[in-house]
C-alpha cells in the first residue's frame, strides 16, 4: 500500500509545518553519509504511512539546515523528536527499533 512520504522540512518551513502543526509531529534529523540514518529511514517511511492523519512525519537534513538542529541541541544523529503543540515531547537518538519509536508516538496521540 502506498501513502504519503515523510514531509521534507527546512529551517525556513520548520515553524509553520512542525511547531504550528495541529497534529503531533515527528521530525527525523538525518544526513546522507550517516549509515544508521539510512537504516532507520524505511521505518520512518512506514510510520508516515501507518500514522497518516494522526502524526505528521517529517525529515530534516542537518547538512542543509544548521539553525533548527542547533536550537534543539542536536549533537548526534539520527535523532527523532516528537513535537506536540510546539513543545518537545520526546527525543530519541540513535538507530532504534520500530517498537521503541511507536511507543513514544502513541504517548503523543
Amino acid at each position, binding site marked *: 500500500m502506498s501513502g504519503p512520504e515523510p514531509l521534507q522540512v527546512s529551517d525556513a518551513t520548520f515553524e509553520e509545518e512542525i511547531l504550528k502543526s495541529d497534529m503531533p509531529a515527528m521530525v527525523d534529523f538525518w*544526513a546522507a*553519509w*550517516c*549509515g*544508521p*540514518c*539510512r*537504516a*532507520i529511514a524505511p521505518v520512518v517511511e512506514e510510520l508516515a504511512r501507518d500514522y497518516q492523519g494522526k502524526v505528521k512525519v517529517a525529515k530534516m537534513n*542537518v*547538512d542543509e539546515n*544548521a539553525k533548527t*538542529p542547533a536550537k534543539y*541541541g*542536536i*549533537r*548526534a*544523529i*539520527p535523532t527523532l523528536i516528537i513535537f506536540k503543540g510546539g513543545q518537545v515531547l520526546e527525543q530519541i*537518538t*540513535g*538507530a532504534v*527499533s520500530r517498537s521503541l519509536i511507536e511507543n513514544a508516538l502513541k504517548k503523543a496521540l
Partner: protein
Amino acid sequence: MSAWDYDIIIVGAGPAGLTAGLYAGRARLKTLLLEKLIHGGQVMTTDLVENYPGFPEGISGFELSDRMRKQAERFGLEFRNGEVLDLKVGPDHHLLRLEGEELKAGAVIIASGARYRNLGVPGEEALTGKGVSYCATCDGALYRGQTIAVVGGGDTALTDTLFLCRFADKIHLIHRRDAFRGEKFLQEQVLAQGKVQIHWDTVVQEIQGNQAVETLQLKNVKTGKESSLPVAGVFIFVGIVPNSAWLKGSLPVDEWGFISTNAQMATSIPGIFAAGDVRSKLLRQIATAVGDGATAAFAAGEYLAEHHPR
C-alpha cells in the same frame, strides 16, 4: 519433518553473518539470520571502505552491507529483526530464546560482532550524545567549522579523523602512545593534514561541560604535565568489546569476552560455530570476517550432514 525450526540460525548480520547466510543459502540449508538492530553491523557506520578488495575507488559501508544482504537473500536466506536473549545448548539441537519465542536450530553460527569501547573517564557517559560521540559518519556534520578532538590511534581513529576533516576546522588527535597502531597508509594521510594536531603520549582524564562538551582534561603520560583543551565535541575510537554477554554461561569465552574456535570456526560445543569480530583472532576486518562466515557455514553444513543425515 525436521526436529528443528531451522537447519542453521545465524546471530548477527554484519559481514560475517551475511556471508555465512550466503553460503548456507547456496547449500540449500534452511537458514535464518537474526539481527537486533540493523544489518551491516559496525560497517554501517564506516563512510568509505577502502581495504575490501574489488572496490578500487572504495565503497560506502552502507552500500557494501546492503549489497551483501541482497546477495544472501537472493539465495534463500531468511532475515529477521530480533534480539537473541540467550542460548540453550542441547545434545540434538540448540535453542535460541527471543522475546516471546524460542527457536530450535540444528546448528548455530554466532556472528554477533563487537561494539565500541568506552574510554571510562568521568563525564563520558553523561555527555554521550551531547558532544561525546562514537560515530563520525553520524555526528561529524554537526561540527562544521568547529574545533573537536579524536581519541585513539588505530585504523578507526585515523579513518574517522580523515572523515572529520571535511567538517571541523581543527582536530586534536589524542593518542596515549608515541606511535599509531593504524595502517601506515592512513598514518601518512593523517600526518599530511594541516587541520590535525597530534597529542602524543596523552590521555583524557575527564570530559567536562554543562549542557554539552566544553573542555577535555589531558595528561601527558611521559612528562606528567596536565592541561585543558577546549573542544565542541570528542570522538572516541579506542577499540572494541565483543557482543558476547548474551552467551553468559552457555558458551565459554576468553578473559576479554571473545569466543575461541578452531580453524573450522567450531567452538568447544558441537554444532555451535563463531565467525567475525566476536571470535578470538589476530585481525578484525571485513575481509577476515567474510572468510570466517564462509568457513563457518560450510563447517556447519558438514556437521549437520554427519550428525543429522537426512
